[in-house]
């Protein structure tokens, strides 16, 4: 059965995921999202994959959340603190979420996953590194190209074209 660490981690992860979507201020929402991503890193540690956990902390909590925080601070104040949403749409959304949770949970609990246990040793991170450099090397190079293309594209998109062309913010 679930132990205390697992329960605490799942409460942190799911609670701050809900808080990230529901808190009125986008800044607090971004910080709550950081908590959720950190909780996922904790799950990775529980699953004996410390390398993925550290990668998650470095990439998600370290860079993506900070990027989101800076973007949030670039938009106007009143946009950060106001929430515009339909009441009806919200109720339908909550109903959809509950139906999905119950249906997925029922399917998972009914399936044969319950019997799966393992007493084998965890995968060593050396094996992961070997995978990257042998079988997956074309994918690794492709990923490097995609990442550099994405960063270049983001810089080009967000660049200010000229002082007097277009409607600039403020």
């Amino acid at each position, binding site marked *: 059965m679930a132990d205390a660490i697992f329960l605490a981690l799942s409460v942190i992860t799911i609670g701050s995921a809900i808080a990230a*979507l529901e808190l009125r201020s*986008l800044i607090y929402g971004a910080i709550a999202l950081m908590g959720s991503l950190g909780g996922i890193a904790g799950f990775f540690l529980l699953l004996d994959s410390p390398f993925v956990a550290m990668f998650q902390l470095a990439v998600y909590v370290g860079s993506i959340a900070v990027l989101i925080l800076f973007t949030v601070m670039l938009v106007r104040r009143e946009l950060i603190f106001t929430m515009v949403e339909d009441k009806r749409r919200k109720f339908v959304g909550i109903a959809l979420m509950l139906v999905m949770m119950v249906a997925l949970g029922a399917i998972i609990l009914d399936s044969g996953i319950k019997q799966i246990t393992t007493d084998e040793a965890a995968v060593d991170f050396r094996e992961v590194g070997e995978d990257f450099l042998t079988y997956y090397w074309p994918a690794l190079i492709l990923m490097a190209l995609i990442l550099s293309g994405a960063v270049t594209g983001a810089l080009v998109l967000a660049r200010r074209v000229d002082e007097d062309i277009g409607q600039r913010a403020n």
Partner: protein
Amino acid sequence: MRILANELIEFVLVSAALLAIGIYGLTVKRNAIRMLFGIEIVINAANLNLVAFGRFLPHSGGQTLALFSIAIAAAEVAIGLSLIIVAYRMYNNIDIADFRSLKG
């Protein structure tokens, strides 16, 4: 080597709950940055699934794919945020109902 205390089904249930929360955020929220939060939560649910199944097989493919997925998610967030900034400059708002020319 430490023996795993938790079962696979617990991780899969947490992952399903995160997926449902992320889809709720994607359907209800009209703020573009909040929708990005929803996408992040869905991607994390998928990563958790990958690593959990990779641990219980056990096979190194789960962790490798999770690492690829995290890296691609970083690229996706960078592009998404710069698109939001461009749209904010054009419409002076980040409400997706105001992005008229994106409606197709």
